[in-house]
């Protein structure tokens, strides 16, 4: 054997050795956590070993990714989220990642479906009243997109319901008395309405009179909104618990006042914000897809897409403004309820001056608890927070001390009450910035397409911008939920129960990683296919179905007899 091969073998050996050592160290690190309330690791022991290895690799990969630079800027938000996820190692972080992934994906389709249902209902009502056939075509065409999104929304919704039991069984035990009721009522009241009436609506275009048929989509749409109320009632309790006591024997939450759960102030500020943002989401998609439709310049479709465009522009302008207003209402609730969340969205560490300046952008140093390089507008934060020209806002350092004073007895001195400030700071700017962008773009679009001087088709760039804007509300929606959910850290139920306490004791790295991978692959498939079929539907245009069904009338078509 010559020297070269020897060297190669040696280095190979050393790589293996390092790998094994790291792996063993990793398992050691893992086991104290998993063996605490021990058991014989489920029936997936072999899988466990394989997935631990995969997890290790992923961890390394993520560590490299943390240092990613894009155009010279470090991906700051990303790093913080990753760092936070790895707090408490493996099981909690994997369960959190899964919840974030499934919820964000689910919430692409939820607001879109709620909004589409509502807008399609309006279109069909206009048809039923005015008998303008264009609006029938619009209801049918946008109805197809609605159904696609609805389908993905349903199936990803079931995951949400099962997930509380699967990954967060301790949470389910702790919160069962309060949390189960809205969920069950949501199913009984909303899901049945949605599922039954959408089934009827889909298949009765030719059977019901226009008015009656429109009623079916209205009922479906109301069902989707009822569903939003109940799930937000459940979420609002997690943000701002009301109407409960802690049972002395079991140590679990016990409902004492159902009325207080439903009339939770957090709920009635979150609901308008969510629902109006949902309408805006659908309106922006209708606008954007119509803009693409106009770009194709098919003469027979021109009127259809122009009407849809105007409809979408008006709706997105109105709902963008309204949702900003609703967001303002919610913000002012949060200042009192969850001051840490609010301070983080504004990147305030030290108490502000009076009147408080608003930081447009800044660099946040989460380690040393400092904000630098602020670009500030004096006085604006006071107006935003209190609708007054004066008043200072508490900083995170002060709030941290307050929280320690309040909760140290119950949760110990080692709790970290700082929420991830960069994530919240930038999420807030993304959300509000995109909302403002939608307002601006819709306004410009309306001006270009006004009846007296309609020049929108000659402004191709405008159509392209509108088309690109399709993606904007989805990002803004997710950013909004990032603020709400990350801002509750370290609690799963504010002030009562921490995230680390809530996770299933039965969960293992193997099962969580396995399910994460399965969900990820499924979501990639569903999301991709959904977008692809929507694009295809747009490509065919609104008059495709009729031509298609004419062909199908032929009783001797190939299909009828198979091959």
């Amino acid at each position: 054997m010559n020297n070269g091969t020897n060297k190669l073998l040696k280095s190979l050996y050393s790589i293996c050795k390092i790998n094994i050592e790291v792996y063993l160290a990793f398992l050691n690190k893992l086991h104290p956590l998993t063996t605490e309330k021990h058991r014989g690791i489920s029936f997936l022991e072999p899988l466990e070993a394989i997935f631990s290895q995969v997890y290790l690799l992923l961890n390394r990969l993520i560590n490299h990714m943390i240092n990613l630079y894009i155009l010279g800027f470090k991906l700051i938000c990303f790093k913080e989220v990753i760092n936070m996820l790895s707090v408490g190692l493996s099981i909690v972080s994997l369960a959190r990642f899964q919840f974030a992934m499934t919820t964000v994906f689910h919430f692409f389709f939820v607001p879109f479906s709620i909004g589409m249902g509502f807008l399609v209902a309006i279109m069909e009502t206009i048809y039923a009243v005015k008998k303008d056939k264009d609006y029938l075509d619009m209801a049918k065409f946008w109805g197809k997109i609605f159904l696609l999104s609805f389908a993905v929304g349903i199936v990803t919704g079931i995951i949400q319901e099962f997930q509380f039991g699967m990954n967060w069984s301790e949470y389910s035990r702790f919160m069962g008395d309060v949390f189960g009721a809205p969920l069950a009522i949501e199913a009984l009241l909303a899901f049945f309405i949605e599922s039954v009436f959408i089934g009827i609506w889909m298949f009765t275009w030719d059977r019901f009179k226009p008015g009656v048929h429109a009623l079916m989509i209205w009922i479906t749409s109301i069902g989707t909104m009822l569903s939003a109320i109940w799930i937000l009632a459940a979420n609002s309790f997690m943000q701002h618990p009301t109407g409960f006591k802690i049972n002395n024997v079991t140590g679990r939450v016990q409902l004492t006042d159902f009325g207080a759960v439903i009339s939770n102030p957090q709920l009635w500020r979150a609901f308008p914000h969510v629902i109006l943002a949902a309408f805006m989401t659908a309106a922006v998609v209708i606008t954007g897809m119509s803009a693409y439709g106009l770009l194709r310049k098919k003469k027979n479709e021109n009127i259809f897409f122009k009407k849809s465009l105007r409809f979408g522009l008006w709706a997105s302008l109105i709902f963008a403004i309204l949702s900003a207003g609703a967001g303002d209402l919610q913000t002012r609730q949060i200042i009192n309820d969850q001051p840490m969340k609010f301070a983080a969205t504004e990147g305030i560490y030290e108490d502000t001056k009076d009147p408080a300046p608003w930081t447009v952008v800044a660099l946040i140093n989460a380690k040393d608890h400092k904000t630098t390089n602020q670009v500030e507008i004096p006085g604006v934060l006071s107006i935003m927070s209190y609708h007054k020209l004066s008043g200072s806002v508490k900083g995170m350092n002060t709030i941290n001390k307050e929280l320690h004073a309040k909760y140290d007895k119950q949760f110990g001195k080692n709790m970290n009450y700082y929420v991830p400030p960069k994530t919240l700071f930038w999420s807030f700017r993304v959300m509000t910035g995109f909302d403002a962008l939608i307002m601006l773009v819709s306004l410009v679009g309306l001006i270009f397409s006004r009846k007296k001087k309609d020049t929108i088709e000659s402004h191709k760039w405008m159509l392209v911008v509108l088309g690109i804007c399709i993606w904007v509300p989805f990002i803004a929606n997710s950013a909004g939920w990032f603020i709400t959910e990350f801002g509750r850290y370290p609690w799963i139920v504010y002030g009562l129960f921490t995230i680390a306490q809530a996770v299933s004791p039965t969960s293992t790295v193997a099962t969580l990683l396995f399910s994460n991978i399965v969900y990820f692959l499924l979501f990639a498939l569903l999301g991709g296919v959904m977008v692809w079929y929507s694009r295809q539907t747009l490509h065919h245009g609104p008059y495709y179905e009729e031509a298609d069904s004419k062909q199908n009338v032929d009783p001797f078509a190939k299909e009828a007899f198979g091959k």
Partner: protein
Amino acid sequence: MTLSILWFLIIGLLFAIFLFMEGFDFGVGMSTRFLAKNDAERVAIMSTIGPHWDANETWLVTAGGAMFASLPLWYASLFSGYYILFLLVLVGLILRGVSFEFHKHAETNAGRNLWMWAFFVGSILPPFFLCMILLSMVQGIPMNANGDAFPKFFDVVNLLSVVGGVAGVLLSLVHGLNFIRLRVAGPLRDRARNLNKILYPILFLGEVVFAVLVFLQTDFFTKRFASSLIITALIVLFSLLGYYGVLKNREGWSFAGSGLSLSMVIVLLFNGLFPRVMIATNPAHSILIKNAANSQYTLTIMTIVACILVPIVVIYFIWSYSLFTKRINPRENTVKY
């Protein structure tokens, strides 16, 4: 005390309704391969449940929600204990749920095939694994004092649970074929009946094996001999009713028979479980209804809500079925799916 038992019964009822309604959905999905011979027939079969499948599935979501709202400790232990199996149920439900809409939009043969297969696979996985979960659960599994279940491989995969899973799939298929006989016209209708003529004898054999295994592997017959025996007899009896309907070509009887025998399986399991909801190998760790239940206050509210909403749901649910009674004929190719 009484309210928590009432909710145990309501959950049982919801699961029973779910199996009755969704059972034929699953069977219809399986029929796309076991019964249909070409794509037109597959589409016709699929469209028999087009307007209904989502509403049927809602019974499962409601059952889960009711479990969470009334007996949360059961919900927490069951779902976290059978993690992987519930994941597989979910995968099935997801594939099935999107297949209807996606199949409609697919334009290539490959695309249509993909979603049709997703429909088929998604219709087999959930009944199989749900029955497996239930039948593994009733045999007793290792649990700790906190109620966390740690079933080992052979606690989950054993003779009874596998036979139960297969029986669930088979019953769903038979039920689905009976539904198809009600909803389609032409040769498909006759072929569904002929296939059921073959399947019923196999089903009876399966039911006998199932009953023997339940007798051997669970404590149902030692704890409640009479009621367990009666319910087991009812399962067989309803299946016989279904078989009678097949032989005499009485479609309504067949459908009711197969649906009720599916529901009776749930009745058997819930009857045997009572007053427990989870059975641990160490009896001290078994979860009882009274320990799993929510506070009296919450249960009262939920009872009021259910009393108001369920009748309304049932009314429009049935009304939606009454709208779609015209038989579907794949030959006419008017199926607008």
